[in-house]
């Protein structure tokens, strides 16, 4: 930490290591922005993409890919293809608000909730985030263990490999390097597309599904559960906290919002392609009437092996490993950001280890604790995998209302408050999520009412 006393101001101005690293990143952005021409604009785009791609591909995590795989295996190619596109559109609507909030206020999401609404509501939202993140982290390590299990890797080595990758990503103590390393790993999520192509899907059937949303699934408890799981695979509370904090840590300003939006749409496009690839890849299991209930990642790969060969099955298993590792990195980072924001401890990936002990400690401890739980023999973790996306959907409406209130707060947003159309869309997202949660509740606790509504 450096400090300088300016005689004119008679005050001590402290410039931290974090400020200097961020200033380096911003100087490169300013240089690219000052130049004209296609190459400079492309470079500017390259410098400013990151949080959106990471959050969207990070959300294509272990349980999400398992949900998509289960969707394809249970329902084949039909209603769920356009439905998944719709859920990613909802994710873009929601995540765009976090870009604006981060760029306008330069504060993280947890920090804004605590300071603007007080610790009472702040703690509620932080507890929601903490529980959701920890359950999700457990499922990431389950996916990693199962994916590497396909290759005969023992569970403890699989977990150690995942923790080592997480540590390597952090070692640079630079946001920029961390972001690029994690993005490179996240792009491996697209491996599900070649796997889908290996199954030789019927493209007219795919086209028909997009055009008509048919065949429709039956209205049953299982369908409600899979609908909720697929929604939870695209919109979850950690995404709000992560993208806003990453936008702040990257140093994005109001001038960069346009690029932040592009980044979010780009990430959603890539993640949608991977999600659709997964559904299409496992659709042959539906055609072969294979029961995939309670399948883990490795079992999907094994079931697909007769159809797409060992190489294709290995790619599928590796995709699951990647999904788990990238999400473990981004989700544990979102927990560490939120903890630092509410405790006012330093919280940035630009911090050297000495200055960011609590930040890095929370990040690694969250991941290590979740990893350790996965190694305990005999725990019924399959229920966690099945329900973690459902829990995410249920926790989303309260999180979205805080986001909605913050992004419409003129005192902190100024002219960047949400326009009417954005408010209508985000209100629609809250209503859809709440209705889906209520329907799920009815299907469990009031089967008679569910049957009266036409459910089976």
């Amino acid at each position, binding site marked *: 930490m*450096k*400090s*300088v006393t*300016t005689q004119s101001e008679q005050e001590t*101005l*402290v*410039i*931290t290591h*974090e*400020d*200097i690293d*961020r*200033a*380096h990143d*911003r*100087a490169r952005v*300013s240089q690219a922005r000052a130049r004209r021409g296609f190459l400079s604009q492309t470079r500017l785009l390259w410098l400013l993409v990151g949080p959106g791609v990471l959050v969207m591909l990070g959300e294509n995590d272990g349980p999400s890919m398992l949900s998509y795989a289960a969707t394809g295996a249970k329902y084949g190619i039909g209603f769920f293809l356009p439905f998944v596109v719709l859920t990613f559109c909802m994710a873009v609507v929601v995540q765009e608000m976090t870009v604006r909030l981060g760029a306008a*206020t*330069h*504060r993280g999401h947890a920090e*804004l909730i605590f*300071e*603007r*609404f*007080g610790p009472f*509501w702040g703690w*509620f939202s932080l507890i*929601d985030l903490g529980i959701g993140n920890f359950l999700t982290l457990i499922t990431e390590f389950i996916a990693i263990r199962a994916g590497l299990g396909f290759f005969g890797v023992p569970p403890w080595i699989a977990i150690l490999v995942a923790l080592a990758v997480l540590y390597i990503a952090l070692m640079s103590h630079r946001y920029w390097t961390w972001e690029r390393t994690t993005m490179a790993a996240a792009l491996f999520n697209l491996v599900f597309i070649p796997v889908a192509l290996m199954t030789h899907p019927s493209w007219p059937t795919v086209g028909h599904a997009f055009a008509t949303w048919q065949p429709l699934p039956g209205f049953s408890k299982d369908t409600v559960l899979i609908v909720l799981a697929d929604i939870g695979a695209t919109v979850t509370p950690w995404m709000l906290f992560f993208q806003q904090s990453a936008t702040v840590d990257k*140093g994005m*300003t109001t001038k960069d919002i346009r690029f932040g939006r592009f980044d979010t749409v780009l990430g959603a496009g890539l993640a949608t392609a991977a999600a659709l690839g997964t559904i299409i890849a496992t659709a042959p299991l539906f055609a072969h009437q294979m029961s995939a209930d309670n399948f883990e990642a490795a079992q999907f790969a094994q079931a697909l092996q007769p159809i797409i060969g060992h190489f294709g099955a290995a790619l599928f298993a590796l995709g699951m490993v990647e999904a788990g590792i990238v999400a473990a990195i981004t989700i544990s980072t979102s927990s560490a950001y939120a903890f630092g924001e509410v405790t*006012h401890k*330093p919280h940035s990936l630009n911090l050297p280890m000495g200055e960011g002990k609590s930040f890095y400690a929370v990040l690694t401890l969250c991941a290590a604790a979740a990893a350790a739980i996965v190694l305990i023999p005999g725990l*019924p973790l399959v*229920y966690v995998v099945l*329900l973690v996306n*459902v*829990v995410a959907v*249920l*926790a989303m*409406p*309260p999180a979205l*209302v805080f986001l909605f*209130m913050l992004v419409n*707060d003129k*005192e*902190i947003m100024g002219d960047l408050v949400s326009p009417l159309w954005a408010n209508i869309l985000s209100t629609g997202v809250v209503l859809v999520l*709440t209705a889906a*949660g209520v329907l*799920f*509740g009815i299907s*469990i*606790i009031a089967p008679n009412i569910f049957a009266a509504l036409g459910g089976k």
Partner: protein
Amino acid sequence: MTNKDDANELRADQSWVLSSLEHDQLVKAKKHKIPRRRLKGPELLVLWGLRIYLLFMMAVVSYQVWIAAR
């Protein structure tokens, strides 16, 4: 390097950082708290309603896990 050289280098760092970052991006500036906003009645109603909804739904999920585990 003398103390005077050190001070000059730090001042150069300072002016470069200040020109590259917006003022409220500085770590020091973030220590200033954003003023609390008083929540209005309808807002509190929505927040409490959703809090009760979430607690109730978590109980439903726990019940489902319990049923499945049996």
